[in-house]
């Protein structure tokens, strides 16, 4: 398990050596649909999933605590 996580982190870290995209070249990346997080309007969708499923977290939201769920 730890090995897999380490491998994954190493792979991601190695991506930092990719070509650097300049600020003025980020027009596509700055599109709201390219946001690297769950959208605000998905708040309650995520909330019911936290209640109805055993797994939670790793999506920028809560991973337990704050309600009598999960």
């Amino acid at each position, binding site marked *: *398990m730890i090995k897999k*996580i380490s491998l*994954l*982190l190493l792979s*991601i*870290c190695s*991506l*930092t050596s*990719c*070509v*650097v*995209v*300049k*600020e003025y*070249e*980020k027009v*596509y*990346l700055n*599109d*709201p*649909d*390219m*946001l*690297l*997080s769950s*959208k*605000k*309007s*998905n*708040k*309650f*969708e995520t*909330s*019911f*999933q936290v*209640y*109805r*499923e*055993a*797994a*939670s*977290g*790793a*999506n*920028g939201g809560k*991973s*337990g*605590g*704050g*309600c*009598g769920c999960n």
Partner: protein
Amino acid sequence: MEGNLVEAAVVINYKKTMKKIIILSILFISIVGYSQSTTNNTEYKKRVLETAEVDIISSFYTQDGDNAAVTGGIGTEELKDIATNFVVSIPLNDDDVFTIDATISAYTSASSSNLDPFDVSSASSDDSDSDNKSSTTNYQNLATNAASPWVESSGASKADVWTSLNLSYSHSSDDRNTILGANVSFAKEYDYTSIGVGGSFTKLFNEKNTEIGLKANIYLDNWSPVYPTELDSYLDDNQNLNDGHFENVDILDQNGNTIDKNGANVWSPFKNTLVDNNSRNTYSVSFSLSQILSKKSQISIFFDLVQQDGWLANPMQRVYFSDRDNYYIGNPSSISNYTSPTNTDVFQLADDIERLPDSRFKLPIGIRFNQYINESVSLRTYYRYYYDDWGVQSSTAEIELPIKISDTFTLYPSYRYYTQTAADYFAPFEQHTSTEEFYTSDYDLSEFNSSQIGFGFSYTDIFAKRKVWKLGLKSIDVKYNSYKRNTGLKAGIISAGFKFVMD
């Protein structure tokens, strides 16, 4: 002499408190002063948030199924929930943003109504013990025996309201490469209270192509437990089946015969202690790493380390053991039909509430990858692997394909697949044995998979020309999701979000 000592102690405490206040004040003034001075030294910098923003999100959720945890893994799971969330983000200066996030969520639930299945009273019952939902029972109804896991009762536990307030503050450095944040939260529902604090640190480098984030949160939660009515009443009535809740009520055995309440073979709960530790604490640390891969693609990886301690079981949820005799209240001829939704008039008395370990470690790891395909279409993907030390492992895969149909309208079709293994402590209705240390019949901890299909649209006006009071409408998001679990649970949620910016 004693009086002087007390007086001296009070003076010392007062001095200590004053000292703390003075130190904190100096620290605060220093931080603000430093922030001001750095601001003055900078010729120009773009504000982190140009103007105040208001987000309002409302949702309506409904579900139904046949595996209610409150009635031991069988029974109606019908539930409806209406919720609204307000988020106000206020720029305090060029660098600092203060955010107020408040939510109110109100539900009605058939399964939680069966905390007391014999209850026909209302929440406004004048029962002197009105601080306990399960004790607002109209005992006369218990004698009429019209209860079943498949029928909603009308008592106080049928509905509840969850409210929460989260205040957060963030500070960005002049070069916008460092962001510090702090937050406090409070949440309350009838039987549960939560206080949380957290902090976050984000660093951007590599010309803002790489971002790392670290977030820590602590939730100090507390149960005000409510229990299945028969367990609570039995203990309240000094374990006397001829008094209080059970007075003049016939208890039936598996064959439908009325038992002798003074005899040797009578119903009794498996344990005479219920929740003995009201606290439930969660400690979480979240890491994130985001990387721009090209002009049109980027990736992010998140993982959390979560430790929970305290009473992690839900005290409302019944468990029935296969190695203990069964006892009922209601119509004897319906006992053979107990697990069928056609049973409307017999209810089985619980053996115990669910019991789970007082510690749980969770490790979710998620990856998000987004690709800008062309001017009309983007691709959003997400995968999460989850592990915990209760034996649950799960995978979640999600894909969304935003399609721009005009400058202002975008469509959002999406699909999500989820699968999980069962917790070590799960077994269905009447399949646990009393020799087990931990047990639950909550199907949210069972093995299952689910599919969710969603469709939404958004309207965006970057100039926010439409006004409501001093607020300009920037966007509207509407989405419907249909959720189906292979255990039979079906759910649907429709949500609408409105984003406004202050003039």
